[in-house]
């Protein structure tokens, strides 16, 4: 029976594709393997249900397709069967939902010792800011933005003076330390997306959003924008590197603080106004 066979092959082919296709998630770089486990549980449960339903359907087509003189049964309902199927489905759903909610609780509970890092999106580039020696990020406002202060930091906030500012560059993070990634946009929606981190969140102008991660392996990863942000959305790229402790500090030493950047700009401006002396 060709039709039944093709239907069955669709189910079997899907399972084989799942097992043997070369396309699978990227090697994880944070300790969000809980998320991967939840996906695996979901694959198992839905995979069994999918195969069972399609196989049953294919069997029905094979066994009960029209032949001369065949007549269907008359069988309006079967309360008992319907209730058992409902309860079974409920159990399957709970088996996916429960671990999902537990992991979501971890996802939205930022550890107290997480250090803050700010990512700022604008059409179509990324900028980053790290707290200075005081461990706090200074305040910012989109109305402060000008060519000399592209991140819109508040000049009067003492916490902001020692903030490390990386405009349109790459970000480094230390391995093994929880990081709360604060997300800010100055124009439209963006989304800070690093596939290997698993976590992602939209950046919304007028709000500060966040997620947290703990990097567990070193390496350099692509940063993409995952929320449509206009014509050059696909070109909004950067890199993030997870370093070991010493490499991280070596990198950090080379970065400029907000005070240095605005001081340098002040020097440049003074030089220009005084006619190059």
């Amino acid at each position, binding site marked *: 029976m060709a*039709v039944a066979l*093709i239907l069955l092959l*669709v189910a079997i082919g899907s399972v084989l594709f799942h097992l043997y*296709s070369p*396309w699978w*998630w*990227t090697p994880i770089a944070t300790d969000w393997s*809980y998320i991967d486990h*939840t996906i695996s549980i*979901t694959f198992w449960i*839905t995979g069994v*249900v*999918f195969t069972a*339903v399609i196989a049953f*359907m294919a069997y*029905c*087509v094979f066994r*009960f*397709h*029209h032949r001369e003189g065949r*007549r*269907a*049964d*008359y*069988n*309006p*309902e079967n309360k008992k069967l*319907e209730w058992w*199927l*409902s309860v079974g*489905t409920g159990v399957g*759903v709970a088996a996916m*939902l429960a671990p*999902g*909610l537990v992991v*979501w609780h971890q*996802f939205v509970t930022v550890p107290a010792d997480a250090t803050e890092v700010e990512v700022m999106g*604008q059409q*179509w580039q990324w900028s980053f800011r790290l707290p200075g020696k005081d461990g706090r990020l200074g305040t910012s406002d989109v*109305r402060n*933005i000008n060519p000399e202060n592209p991140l819109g930091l508040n000049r009067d906030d003492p916490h902001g003076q020692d903030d490390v500012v990386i405009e349109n560059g790459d970000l480094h993070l230390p391995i093994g330390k929880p990081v709360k990634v604060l997300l800010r946009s100055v*124009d*439209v*929606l963006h989304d800070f*997306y690093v596939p290997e981190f698993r*976590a*992602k969140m939209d950046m*919304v*102008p*007028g*709000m500060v959003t966040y997620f947290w991660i703990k990097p567990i392996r070193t390496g350099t990863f*692509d940063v*993409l924008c995952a929320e449509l*942000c*206009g*014509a*050059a*959305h*696909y*070109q909004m790229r950067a890199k993030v590197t997870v370093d070991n402790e010493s490499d991280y500090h070596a990198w950090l030493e080379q970065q400029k603080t907000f005070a240095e950047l605005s001081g340098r700009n002040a020097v440049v401006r003074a030089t220009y106004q005084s006619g190059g002396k």
Partner: protein
Amino acid sequence: MVDVPYDGIAGIPPAEVPDVELYHPKSWWTRYVFSQDAKVIAVQYSLTASAIGLVALVLSWLMRLQLGFPGTFSFIDANQYLQFITMHGMIMVIYLLTALFLGGFGNYLIPLMVGARDMVFPYVNMLSYWVYLLAVLVLASTFFVPGGPTGAGWTLYPPQAILSGTPGQDWGIILMMASLILFIIGFTMGGLNYVVTVLQARTRGMTLMRLPLTVWGIFTATVMALLAFPALFVASVMLLLDRLLGTSFFMPSLVEMGTLSKYSGGSPLLFQHLFWFFGHPEVYIVALPAFGIVSDLISTHARKNIFGYRMMVWAIVGIGALSFVVWAHHMYVSGMFPQFGYFFATTTLIIAVPTAIKVYNWVLTLWRGDIHLTVPMLFALGFIITFVNGGLTGLFLGNVVVDVPLSDTMFVVAHFHMVMGVAPIMVVLGAIYHWYPKVTGRMLNDVLGKFHFWVTFLGAYLIFFPMHYLGLLGVPRRYFELGDAAFIPPSAHSLNAFISVVALTVGFSQMVFLFNLVWSLFRGEPSGGNPWRATTLEWQTPETPPGHGNWGKELPIVYRWAYDYSVPGAEQDFIPQNQPPRATRAAQGAAS
């Protein structure tokens, strides 16, 4: 016992609304163009929706050319690519599927299936179509205005939808809003008609629990649409005010192309809540009519009553109600209050239970049936596979923390195409093969139909099933080019090329279908009034195609539910709903 004919009418209460005199057309214009006959309006809706749907199909080819072979087609640039995806999505979801299921199938089937002469407000029904046509024309006009159509994505998220970094910012977005507002006005006129007709104009004996599931699906979807579309309406009006008058409903202080804009104090998330308060029910506005129709296709072509009719009705109503409290599962990574995640993940996964019941009941209807593998039945089987597949991947995306890595990737694209693109279109196509004989009096060609089914079903599955794995890998959606990214292997680009080739093949196979539609209109085998030997009222009309007023002198009287197939002891394997019971059966019924 003597087999005494018994009309059984004594116990049937009279209809809610007595038989009415219809408007009778006096000229060709009022018969075929400005017609108040729901059947003509249905055909007008269907043809208009299909025409604009073909535009969306061509847009999908252009998108696939770019994705499969980036850099090869110099006539597609990044702006156009965004315009293609936006218009493709908007047309398919609203102007094709919603209009076709409710305006097309709703108009044709509701009056016939409930035993009415027409919709209760025929004049308003006619206006509904003409406002819809205007909405479609305004939408199509954006292809010809300066700057072209909007490229904001079909979700039209502000701020970018109305700022200068997005294509179509000057005219496209304004006309898009205007078109949506018109569509909703037109839909409301039609929708009130469908609801009131089902509630008030059912013929004598047609109780709610004797309605075919097609009517239940369309009716529930229409009620939902009447409640959900107002959210889109206000969102469109507010976004239009933000764009035209400089209000700030959705616009916070922001920098536009390097300078501080005049906007201040609005909330981009407010738009997303309004959009998805409409947008999630919209999924079921498309799905519920498909659920209803496919139930009737399976039952008719398997010659067996639909299994668990009452549970099926409650599942439709339950899904409809639940779908209003799940909208924020589209916003898990939007930056909304994170604790919402628990609530919306729970409601979303609960909705899987009534949906699963429907799937079980469809396949259990096949069990011990007499399955005729006609073209409508094949499409119904194709629907079950694609719907089960797409429904199950919904359990990934609905489960909040699983959604975090997968959202905004090709996994989402694959999921929603499978569940609300391919699956409902399987039903649309099956339904066209099923009801075409009633509309035209001729059968569609069976060989072309089977070819069309296998290419469409297997092709669509080959397109969208592997696409999930690109998303799992991390490939983002709405990307003009993937460019250099270390995590995307060359094999992913090959897969993209493969998907594009299959997509073009499936697209061209639709031309075979169009040819079949036209050819069969003139050369198809005459069908007679009830070629599928079905029970529901539309197959019992005195004329085929049904005449103006549907029923001749007397309205039909309904004696039984819509699924009396293969009743033990009956001569034939179906008993039409309007066939009076015989005394023997009445006596048996009284004794049991």
